[in-house]
């Protein structure tokens, strides 16, 4: 039946790049002879719809089996059966051009499986795609004056929060639901978006986002802070829309915006088609429950994307999620993707109108296991625990992680625990990020932050998915079984769709869990080699001969010193002992305010701090700078960092020192680099005719965002490529420079940068001072004695 009805037919499919879509395309190509597929795919940011079809669908491991069966040439030929059409179900008219419309018009079957399946998508997005998507398809078919068989993939959860049986009947057979006006919901969602957007731009909110950006990035400079602030505004608006969606869904009896919009979409599509009268396409709806990895087809365990159960299972195996809410005797309605795909194809290939369709109602097929072959939550949990006890994941130290016992707590308790942990970790993170920590200390901040984000993620899983484990609805599968029985034995062999075929224990332990672990790239062996390979790999990339330039920050990247300690050293060099004490007291008292100023704005800080050099004799400074070189720069240097500069130079990379330190102080460091970009103070001649400093900077000091633009100018002037360059820096104020180059390296990063570097996968180097050498606590010079120092023949 199926084969006769679908063979040689043209089938239009949306959502082909998704989990179900990919499996569907593969199954049709493999099992339905000569069918032609037209895939509606959005253009990517960098690739066309056609390229996406090849890259994201045909190259997926879903097609490994076909590739093997057909050989390279055969596979090429088979790929000719697939036509990509650029478009988007989220826009009116599906975004189709003429050719696209013609392609759609030529199809006898349309399978709509595009959806935003994220349970936490913002309401307006869910409405545009989930609710209006199929409506737009129906409208387009009407416009094209064609009436193919329209099969929409929906979800069992359109039945809403309910206990007991949920039958395969239209959503609006419930009076309350039929009273909901889907057009009003669409308008409300769109209005909420614009309201939320307006609210996100309120001055107080913007200030809040600005503060948050500064907390995360420190003094990273205007452009980066602005970029982050705007990103935070969008994130806030997004979160708000998610919240609005969840609240609206809950208020009318659905667990989340996904189920809510899907439910309304079934109503809207049916209504729309009904309004077109007899010429309308006939509508079938396939409602799967929770779709998980494949039981058999194309290969056991095949899965695409990170879905609902996987993150939860992995969080549990990693010891992050100690408990997950649920009722032990409750049923977890899981269904393997290949059964869903088989049901979709079988539904699409069914013979004639069903009585419902004849009456203008959709034919509904639920694909669920709960009523026919239930999997109890207790059983799932037991199998998972047993499996991970036998095959534990390993932590970064190569130690196996022991999975906790499950106590089936209520959702409230788990959420409470997790939010308390989240609050504590957030507080700890706030403290750590503001401490002047480096290296290992800063890594602590990164660890806390990681812990916190893991906790927050765990909490969001509980919030999102908790309802699904507590759901006690039983989804009827009468239509599915009728369909199954209507297949002849050949078709039954090709399209297994009876949930009774699942052996849950085998499925969980032999198929699903191994696939999840493999797919989640979880550490499933105690070997640490893979963890160590990463920095080595990054280092090799950084030290590749192809790189063009290596830019180095000075303070805490090459030496453990800063402009204040340098100034203190220079100032005390010619100071009598009594004055030194007063100077020390004064400097210590000033320290906190200097630190705060530096954090706020590096350029302003340098500008005001350097005024202290006003009137200093140039000749004297030059002379003292030679001693400063040994006593401060070299004594506090990181030998490994200096070695790295030399390695870059030996490889032929242009080495550049870029620092807000003053030229005369770093003069002796110049031979280490090809070029030095630094700050310079103006000069004047005093009354006795000697050259002195003015204490005013000649130009904008090379700090924060200025560094990125200076480097960009430098590179273009020298014919070097920034994307082939390396930058080394220690603080988030260097973020603009680090982001500007292709190979950023965080050196002894402070907590903020450590956290950013970890998230972005940057190379982190721990350069330290030579061990055993201790300098005095206060950066004071050994006293200069009033006969010139020995300078050799220089």
């Amino acid at each position, binding site marked *: 039946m199926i084969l006769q009805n679908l063979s040689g037919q043209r089938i239009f499919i949306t959502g082909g790049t998704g989990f179900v879509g990919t499996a569907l395309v593969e199954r049709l190509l493999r099992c339905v002879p000569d069918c032609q597929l037209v895939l509606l795919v959005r253009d990517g940011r960098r690739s066309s719809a056609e390229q996406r079809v090849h890259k994201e669908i045909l190259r997926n491991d879903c097609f490994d089996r076909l590739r093997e069966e057909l050989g390279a040439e055969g596979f090429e030929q088979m790929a000719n059966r697939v036509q990509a059409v650029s478009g988007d179900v989220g826009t009116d008219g599906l975004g189709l051009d003429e050719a696209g419309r013609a392609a759609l018009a030529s199809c006898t079957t349309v399978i709509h499986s595009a959806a935003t399946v994220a349970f936490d998508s913002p309401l307006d997005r869910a409405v545009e795609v989930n609710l209006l998507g199929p409506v737009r398809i129906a409208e387009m078919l009407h416009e094209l004056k064609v009436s193919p068989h329209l099969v929409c993939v929906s979800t069992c959860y359109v039945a809403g929060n309910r206990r007991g049986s949920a039958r395969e009947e239209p959503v609006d057979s419930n009076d309350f639901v039929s009273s909901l006006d889907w057009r009003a919901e669409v308008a409300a969602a769109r209005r909420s978006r614009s309201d939320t957007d307006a609210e996100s731009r309120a001055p107080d909110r913007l200030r809040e986002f600005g503060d948050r950006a500064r907390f995360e990035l420190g003094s990273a400079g205007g452009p980066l802070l602005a970029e982050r602030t705007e990103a935070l505004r969008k994130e806030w608006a997004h979160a708000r829309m998610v919240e609005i969606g969840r609240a609206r869904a809950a208020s009318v009896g659905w667990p989340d915006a996904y189920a809510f919009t899907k439910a309304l979409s079934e109503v809207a599509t049916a209504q729309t088609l009904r309004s077109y009268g007899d010429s309308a396409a006939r509508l079938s709806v396939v409602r799967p429950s929770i779709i998980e990895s494949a039981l058999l087809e194309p290969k056991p365990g095949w899965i695409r994307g990170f879905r609902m159960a996987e993150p939860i299972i992995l969080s549990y195996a990693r010891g992050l999620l100690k408990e997950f809410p649920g009722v032990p005797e409750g049923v977890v309605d899981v269904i393997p993707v290949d059964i869903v795909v088989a049901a979709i194809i079988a539904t699409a290939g069914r013979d004639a109108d069903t009585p419902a369709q004849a009456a203008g109602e959709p034919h509904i097929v639920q694909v669920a296991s709960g009523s026919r072959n239930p999997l109890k939550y207790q059983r799932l949990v037991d199998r998972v625990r047993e499996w991970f006890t036998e095959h534990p994941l390993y932590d970064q130290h190569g130690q196996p992680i022991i999975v906790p016992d499950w106590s089936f707590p209520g959702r409230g308790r788990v959420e409470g625990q997790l939010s308390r942990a989240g609050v504590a970790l957030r507080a700890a993170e706030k403290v750590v990020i503001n401490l002047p920590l480096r290296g290992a200390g800063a890594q602590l901040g990164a660890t806390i932050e990681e812990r916190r984000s893991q906790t927050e993620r765990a909490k969001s899983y509980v919030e999102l998915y908790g309802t699904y484990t507590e759901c006690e609805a039983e989804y009827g599968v009468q239509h599915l079984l009728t369909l199954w029985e209507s297949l002849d034995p050949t078709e039954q062999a090709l399209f297994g769709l009876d949930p009774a075929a699942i052996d849950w224990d085998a499925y969980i332990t032999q198929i699903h869990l191994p696939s999840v672990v493999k797919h989640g790239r979880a550490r499933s062996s105690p070997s640490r080699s893979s963890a160590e390979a990463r920095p080595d790999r990054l280092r090799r990339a950084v030290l590749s001969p192809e790189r063009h330039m290596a830019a180095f920050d000075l303070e805490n990247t090459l030496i453990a010193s800063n402009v204040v300690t340098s100034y203190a050293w220079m100032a005390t060099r010619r100071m009598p002992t009594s004055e030194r004490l007063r100077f020390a007291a004064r400097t210590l008292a000033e320290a906190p305010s200097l630190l705060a100023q530096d954090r706020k704005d590096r350029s302003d800080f340098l500008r005001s701090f350097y005024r202290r050099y006003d009137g200093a004799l140039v000749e004297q400074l030059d002379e003292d700078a030679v001693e400063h070189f040994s006593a401060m720069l070299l004594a506090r240097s990181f*030998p490994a960092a200096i070695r790295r500069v030399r390695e870059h130079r030996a490889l032929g990379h242009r080495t550049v020192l870029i620092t807000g330190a003053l030229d005369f102080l770093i003069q002796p460091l110049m*031979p280490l680099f090809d070029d030095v970009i630094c700050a310079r103070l103006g000069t004047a001649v005093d009354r006795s005719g000697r050259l002195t400093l003015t204490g005013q900077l000649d130009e904008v000091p090379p700090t924060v965002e200025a560094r990125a633009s200076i480097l960009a100018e430098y590179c273009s002037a020298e014919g070097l490529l920034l994307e082939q360059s390396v930058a080394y820096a220690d603080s988030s104020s260097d973020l603009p420079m680090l982001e500007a180059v292709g190979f950023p390296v965080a050196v002894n990063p402070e907590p903020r940068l450590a956290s950013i570097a970890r998230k972005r996968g940057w190379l982190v180097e721990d350069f330290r001072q030579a061990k055993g*050498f201790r300098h005095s606590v206060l950066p004071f010079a050994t006293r200069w004695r009033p006969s010139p120092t020995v300078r050799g023949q220089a």
Partner: protein
Amino acid sequence: MSQQPRSHQPRSTASGKSGSGKSGTGKPAQRRGQQPAAPRPGLVLDVDRSTPPVLLHSGEQFRLERLPAGRSRIIYPPEPLPGLEHPDEAIRDALLNPVDSDPLPAQLFSGMKLTIAFDDISLPLPKMRRPDIRQRVIEAVLDLAADAGVDDIHIIAALALHRRMTEAELRYCLGDRIYDAFAPRGQLYNHDAEDPEGMVMLGETRHGEEVQMSKRAAESDLIIYVNINLVSMDGGWKSTATGLSGYQGIRHHHNVKTMRNTKSFMDQENSELHRSNWRQGDVLKSAGINIFQIETTVNNDLFGDGPLSVLAKREWEWSAKDRATFLGVKTGLDRLPPSSRRRILHSWEAPYALTSVHAGEVEAVHKLTTAEVYKQQLVSVEGQTDIVLYGLPYVGPYNVNSIMNPILVMCLGLGYFFNMYKGKPVVREGGVLIMTHPTTNEFHPVHHPSYIDFFEQVLAETTDPIEIEQRFETSFATDEWYRHLYRTSHAYHGVHPFYMWYWGSHALEHLSQVIIVGGDPATVRRLGFRPASTLADALEMASDVLGPDPSITYVKNPPLGMADVT
């Protein structure tokens, strides 16, 4: 544990050269209370059951170790010789009555170019109490120069490829008067072997060795070299041919081949290093370089009469007060953080006395000086040993006011200590060297930058001196950054860590194994040696190579002693 020592190892009961020594096998109890009138010569003591634990230096700390009875012996250095009663007069006398040379005043004349060069901070060890001999000698020389109306005087620290001395160090060596008179005018400075304008090539030896020298010194009418001959390696042509030279000249004898043909570098007769320097001296002479060499020797009085005097005493002669003092010093040091220990020990100034001063022609003077050194340091030893044991102290020539890094540990043990012999090494070929030192992975970032890279880059790949020389020496020696640091900061030359390694190459070839007791395991392994946590463990490890009950010789040093092994 009461097995007999291995029969093929001769037991030695050697006495000092002067013949007034005691039998090494005598019971310590018999010695107690004896107060010899003259300083006692060195001594080889056979360890028996009544021998008390002996003191071993271990960097900035001390260890007391009991050596296995019946198969161990201890070489004690001679006691300090009496110093000259009137050093200033002796100096003046040497200048006025030189050996094989005209008196100094006769060589000084108005309008001449005079260069005074002096040994740098690597001598003596530890530094001496002020006034330093160099100050005494140079002040005497300057008096004579002033009398002769000499104006054009340069005073140069002849440091070859060592680090530049700091102002404070120069003031310490030469005194404020000399410093303030010469330094401000640019007439007192550190030698700069990498100054392209400041160095000249003077020719080649018949072996093709280039001879390089400070231009100022080479162009002077007279070079007066002021030396402190702490050990028998110092002085002679090495003062000028090496001290005022640069990498181009020095590389001809500071290499693995030369060092492996130098047995030992403390024994001039059998030292290829010295032969090469002497050949370079011939070139200096024939280039018309006029040198007035002043050599001095000091006695072995490192620790004086104060609380540290216990360190110079032979253990069985320690009084109750000595023991208490030692315990106090040891406990005190153990409890301090390493950096404080280092500061305290490096501030120690030895009360050396001047034992001789000779001036005049280089080679004639040096013969006399070497005899003086031997008189103070030589100890007769009969037969070699299976295991030689050293306790490495906190200071060597290259970490004055600095850190004894792992490469310097190697050089002090396998270079300096191992080579303190005449005749044959104390340890037999294929024997084991055990030394005590914490050997931490610590470096002075200003003084030893190329050492850090040598440790991280070179030793990480190989410890074979030949391979190191062939693969890495040139790149370090000609590196612009190291050159810059040597010239403007206070860094040893880029090539210097290589020389440290070559210094130990004779020992590396001779020994089957080197064990460092108390050394940081990772660091010791990087050096190619084996770490042991206790001396007992180290002896056990040595037995794996040498068989059961190997003979052991502990060379107690400091104070300095040199074994004359027959």
